Structure formats: structure tokens, C-alpha cells
């Protein structure tokens, strides 16, 4: 396998005039526990640490919690910002939406279980961090990676791939598993003490939870599946559907944001409807009414509906009948909607679609 043979480039040794300066590291902060512990391990060794976080558009961050009521119990916070605040470090959030498209659409190393191009994604993020490091005169990069933690991007044989393809070479330090990996520049230069780094490996979370305990960290975001929606099967299916319907693999930020929200139904290949499942989602979809044809039931309470596609009158009626099924008028004879297209509105009266007649494959 090619991955195992990748040579990691060695960086030039630090200049003597910097000998007495505090070493500076930029840490990738996802908002989860591992990157928090990696950064904390560096702070403990007297390193100046600043965090960097990348917004790809697929992140499972704050906004989805803000939208959906079912997440009410969870704190409405951006976990990366929260982690930075707990650690007392600065955090730079970088918009990489445009550049990230190529990672999602053309991953050199392919996808994981769903549409998650984890290995390319890691390489991309470390590469962006390396660019930032060089621009800001920092010495090295820190990630919370652990050998064997994730099947695709965090394996012993993929660790050097990330280091090499990102261009970070041996300026990339993984404090949580560094003792199991070859020495890196920060260790050789004595900026950090290798004996006080860690040797975590495998999928067990125990060592991390124990280390968190030692640091007195008792509140952290629970790691769930992955850090982004691309690992989510239902989300990946909706993205595949979007590409199939459009006849091309591409997306804009609005597309991928809308896939995070609402109930999506595609009754015909050329159109789909998106319905808010509760108030927060309706409010979110409201913001898109200028871009899409939309409907709201006026005879009964019910969802705000966005319609994506070019529709005939029959299609519009079908869309309204389906939406009526998800309104509180589902058992009524008729449900009246206000249909708005390009700023012009009209009323539409329909019979709700019978629940059992909605083909399963329409529901995305």
C-alpha cells in the first residue's frame, strides 16, 4: 500500500535568535474533546497556542441547534468557541466553503461510510492550518488525532499521508498519540517534551476521559459519529438526490444548508418540497422564500413549504396536497394554502393526500 511509504519532509532547524522565545502552535479546534485535550497538553508545556476552526458548510455546529427545538436541552453554543474560551486561547474561524467543494466532490482517497471524504478533509484542513502557520510566524501545528480512532483518517498508515499531503511535514504534532509516531520537529527542537506527550490509540475513549479528568475538564461535547453532516446517511442520501435531480455534482452553500433542515419529499424527478417540521425550522425556511416558490396553509396550522423546481399546475396541486397531509388539516376535507411565487400570491384549495398513499421513495 502506497500510504505506508510516504516520506515525511523534515523542516529546517529553528534559528538560534528564536531560542528563548515561547514556541507558538496553531491547534485545529473542532469543538470536541480530543482537539481540546491536544491543545491543553500544549498549554501545559508552556507553548503559546491559538486555535483554528474551519467552516465547510457541513459542520454540525451551533446553527442546527439554534434551529431545531428538539435540541433545546443542548446548549446553543458554538463548541469550538466554547472550547477556546475554556482553554483561554484565541480562535480563528475560517470560511473554507468554496475551496472545500473540491474535497467533497473529488476526493483523491475516496469516501468513508457515507459522503465523508475524511482523509482528504484532514489533509485539506492541516494544509490550511499550515498556510496560516507560515503567514503568522507560528512554529508548528497541533491536532487531536489519535491512531486508530477513526477507520479512514486516523490510522497509523494514513497519519504520514496527512502530514505529507498537507505540506505540514514534521511540523505537525499529534500530542495525544505522539509517542507512538516518529519524532517531529517540535520534539527534536525541544519546544515540547516528548515524555509528556501521550500514547493513545484505538477507539476506546477511556484515556481521553481520564486525561480530561486530570485537567479538570468535565464539560465537553460528546463525540457523535463525526464532526460533519457528510457522515450522516440520511444527509448523504439527500445530497445524492440533489445531484441526481440536477444532473451534476455541485452545490452552493444554500443547498447544503437546506439539506440540514426540514422534511424533504421528491414526488417527481423535477421538483421537491421542503417542509418545516416545527417553528424554528419554519423560521429558518422563511429566509429562503424570496428564492423559492413557497406555500403556507391558511385554513389550518401547518408547515412553511419551499418548492424547488419548475412546476406545472398539476405539480403545484400535488405539492399542496402532500403539504396538507403534514398540516393540522390532514383529516379535513380541504386545506387552503397561500402560494407565493416571485412576490405574487394566490390561494389554493386542495384535498390532503392520503397518508398511506405516499410512496416511501418520495420521502428523502
Amino acid at each position: 500500500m502506497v500510504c505506508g511509504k510516504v516520506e515525511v519532509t523534515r523542516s529546517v532547524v529553528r534559528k538560534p535568535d528564536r531560542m528563548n522565545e515561547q514556541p507558538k502552535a496553531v491547534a485545529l479546534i473542532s469543538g470536541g474533546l480530543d482537539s481540546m485535550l491536544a491543545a491543553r497538553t500544549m498549554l501545559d508545556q508552556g507553548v503559546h497556542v491559538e486555535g483554528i476552526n474551519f467552516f465547510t458548510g457541513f459542520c454540525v455546529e451551533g446553527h442546527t441547534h439554534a434551529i431545531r427545538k428538539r435540541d433545546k436541552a443542548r446548549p446553543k453554543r458554538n463548541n469550538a468557541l466554547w472550547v477556546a474560551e475554556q482553554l483561554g486561547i484565541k480562535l480563528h474561524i475560517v470560511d473554507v466553503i468554496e475551496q472545500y467543494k473540491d474535497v467533497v466532490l473529488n476526493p483523491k482517497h475516496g469516501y468513508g461510510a457515507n459522503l465523508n471524504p475524511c482523509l482528504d478533509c484532514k489533509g485539506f484542513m492541516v494544509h490550511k492550518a499550515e498556510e496560516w502557520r507560515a503567514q503568522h510566524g507560528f512554529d508548528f501545528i497541533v491536532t487531536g488525532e489519535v491512531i486508530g480512532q477513526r477507520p479512514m483518517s486516523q490510522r497509523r498508515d494514513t497519519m504520514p499521508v496527512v502530514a505529507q499531503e498537507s505540506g505540514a511535514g514534521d511540523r505537525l504534532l499529534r500530542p495525544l498519540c505522539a509517542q507512538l509516531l516518529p519524532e517531529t520537529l517540535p520534539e527534536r527542537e525541544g519546544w515540547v517534551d516528548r515524555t509528556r506527550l501521550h500514547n493513545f490509540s484505538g477507539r476506546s475513549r477511556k484515556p481521553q476521559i481520564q486525561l480530561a479528568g486530570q485537567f479538570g475538564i468535565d464539560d465537553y461535547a460528546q463525540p457523535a459519529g463525526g464532526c460533519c453532516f457528510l457522515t450522516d446517511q440520511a444527509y448523504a442520501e439527500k445530497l445524492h438526490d440533489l445531484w441526481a435531480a440536477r444532473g451534476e455534482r455541485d452545490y452552493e452553500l444554500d443547498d447544503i444548508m437546506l439539506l440540514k433542515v426540514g422534511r424533504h419529499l421528491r414526488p417527481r424527478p423535477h421538483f421537491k418540497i421542503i417542509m418545516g417540521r416545527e417553528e424554528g425550522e419554519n423560521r429558518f425556511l422563511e429566509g429562503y422564500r424570496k428564492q423559492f416558490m413557497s406555500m403556507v396553509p391558511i385554513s389550518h396550522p401547518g408547515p412553511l413549504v419551499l418548492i424547488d423546481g419548475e412546476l406545472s399546475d398539476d405539480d403545484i396541486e400535488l405539492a399542496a396536497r402532500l403539504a396538507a397531509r403534514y398540516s393540522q388539516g390532514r383529516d379535513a376535507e380541504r386545506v387552503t394554502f397561500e402560494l407565493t411565487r416571485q412576490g405574487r400570491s394566490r390561494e389554493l384549495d386542495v384535498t390532503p393526500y392520503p397518508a398511506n398513499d405516499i410512496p416511501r421513495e418520495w420521502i428523502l
Partner: protein
Amino acid sequence: MDSVSHHSLDARNLLCPMPVIRTQEAVADLVPGEILTVRCTDPGALSDVPAWCRINGHEIVTTERNDDEINITIKVGA
């Protein structure tokens, strides 16, 4: 009397963390002491923009919330 320049940023209809990213970009062009008002609609900004300010050393002067809009006024720190 010193005049402090007051800037405004329209981050309406952007979802978090975009208002924070736009705030960060706007603040990068300002000097300490200048004032920036961020207009946004995502309630997430109510926690994220102040959190970003706290960790990066900027001061929140006021936070106003109307029906649909949130105005967060920031004094740029050193």
C-alpha cells in the same frame, strides 16, 4: 472631543458561524477603540459573537434584540 468611528456590518440572514466569521473579518480592518455594530438574525449569534469577542479581547458594548433582529455593538480591543 475625540470622534470614534462607528462601523456597521450586515450579517442578517446568515447562519452561525457566518456572522462570527464576518465579524472577525470586519474587526481585522479596524483599530482599537473603534465601534462595530453587527446586525444579525440568527439567535445563535447572541452567544457566538460575544464568545468570540471575549476570547479575542474585544468588548461588547450593547446587545439589543427586537422581534427579528439582533444588534450587537462591539468596541475593538487592542
